[in-house]
């Protein structure tokens, strides 16, 4: 188990090969004065040229939690294990996985196989547990409208943590629980948040003063999404994925969304 310590940390996940958003996110976090940045997993999927994101992350020496995608690529598994159940969603996932597997250098895949499933972070005097889906399962979806407070409290109890940070769903949210405890889904920087805004999102957590709970700051990041869309077309990636990058609305992988989250989107 990797242990880190910080007072101000940038947490992002779901890079999905969007290396342009990754560069913009790291620049934004740097400008915001963080003393650590951690990636919560899923370097590949949806986007073009997966090696570029790996190179940026590795050159920057950023700690990475293993996402389900990284686990699958690292272990030569035949699918991404994203956890979809709908045939159309799974068909798009398979297409994306085949492209990403074929274009990820074996050396990067070997590196992914050794990534940790969880990272612990001392955030001031609060203990944060960082993972991809949930502490018990990399591909568990923690949706805002589908997790009771007492369930989230149980996850924190089991993880012996004050703060739990996850990604995997692609939608950012945060829930304060009794006792200053908190669960944060940091969203994704690889695709927009299904709200018609092409910018992507991540979170900065800052240790509370005088032992108080950490503060959560949401960051929306602009990047050259038109350039990414051009590269995706050149790679003949599905037009549905490109539309999401251009418009900010999800067009695939929608059937796992609970009703509240689904109703906010266009499709």
């Amino acid at each position: 188990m990797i242990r880190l310590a910080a007072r101000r940390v940038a947490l992002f996940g779901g890079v999905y090969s969007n290396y342009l958003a990754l560069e913009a996110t790291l620049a934004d976090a740097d400008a915001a004065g963080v003393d650590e940045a951690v990636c919560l997993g899923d370097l590949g999927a949806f986007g073009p040229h997966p090696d570029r994101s790996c190179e940026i992350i590795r050159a920057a020496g950023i700690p990475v939690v293993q996402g389900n995608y990284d686990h699958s690529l690292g272990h030569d598994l035949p699918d991404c294990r994203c956890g979809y159940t709908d045939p159309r969603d799974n068909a798009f996932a398979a297409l994306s996985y085949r492209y990403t597997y074929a274009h990820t250098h074996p050396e990067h895949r070997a590196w992914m196989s050794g990534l940790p499933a969880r990272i612990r972070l001392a955030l001031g005097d609060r203990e944060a547990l960082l993972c991809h889906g949930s502490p018990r399962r990399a591909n568990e979806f923690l949706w805002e409208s589908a997790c009771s407070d007492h369930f989230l409290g149980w996850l924190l109890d089991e993880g012996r943590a004050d703060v739990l940070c996850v990604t995997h769903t692609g939608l950012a949210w945060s829930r304060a629980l009794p006792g200053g405890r908190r669960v944060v889904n940091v969203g994704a920087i690889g695709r927009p948040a299904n709200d018609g805004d092409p910018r992507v999102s991540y979170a900065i957590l800052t240790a509370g003063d005088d032992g108080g709970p950490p503060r959560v700051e949401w960051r929306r990041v602009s990047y050259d999404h038109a350039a990414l869309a051009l590269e995706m077309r050149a790679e003949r990636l599905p037009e549905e994925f490109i539309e999401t990058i251009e418009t900010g609305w999800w067009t695939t992988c929608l059937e796992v969304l609970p009703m509240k989250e689904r109703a906010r989107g266009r499709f």
Partner: protein
Amino acid sequence: MGAEHSRPRLRPHADTGAAPVLEPGHLDALWFQVTGTRCNLRCAHCFISCAPDNDAFEPLSLEEVERRLEESVPLGVREYYFTGGEPFLHPRIVDILSRALEYGPTTVLTNGTLLKPLQVEPLAAAAAASRWSLEFRLSLDGFDPCSNDALRGAGAFERAMAGVELLLAHGFLPIVTAVETWDPASAPEVQRRLVETLKAHGYSRPRIKLMPALRIGAEAARSGGYGEHDRVTHEILEGYDLGQLVCSHARVVTDRGVWVCPILLDAPDGSLGDDLARAAETPFALGHAACHTCWLHGAICSNPGSAAPESAIPREAAIPVPAALDETAP
């Protein structure tokens, strides 16, 4: 980490001939048999033979539901499901669902034929006020009266579509569940026509969940049930994702205490006593045909996105085949 201890696992065994015994993981889902086994319909494929005159299980009172919701809090239950029978036969169903929405995500499984504005309107208000989703799962087994009503009874299709329209008018996006009673070869065509039908009724982005037919209850008489060899064995559970078995993460509250699984109400050993905390930890022998169904199809009772399957690849194909992945290589 602690969560390791909350994973479901098989009890170590000596005799491979006996049914495998599953020690459950964390109680994620609490089901309520809210109207017992009473239903206004008498579907030919019902897995627990619910009907207007089936009183094997009685409805739950609002007070009983409230007591169980309260008991579920220290157990860390993630979400609640309400089923029957037909939940909208219950005179207090609006109060019951509204109450559940104060505790967590709530799903109701309905045939949609009894929904009234007087019920849907206050539920829309309760759902808007809650931070959690209220999911309607609406059963429809065909894309027209002919295919649907053959299973669900005359007039069921038109009434269910009226239910869909009513839910849409109040901002709900029902998950239409259809049991795959058709020839597998015609499945894409059936699904296409189902989507078309729902769109024609104003559902522009229909959410559809296809369910396998469970050949138990009334359906056993219709399709012949399972053979004696259709049972879960230690062998077939090797390398299997136990989290896909509903009893690994769910229990059912009935008027007769807590039961192991929504499709085992007819099984005497499905009863796990009255104490929810104890029932949540009670191991269960996977000796039923229903258990085989669950093994085969995996977590079909859960909402999509709730119990993520480990892999989208069918088990028999779940071996590493990296060479096949290289077909898109330049």
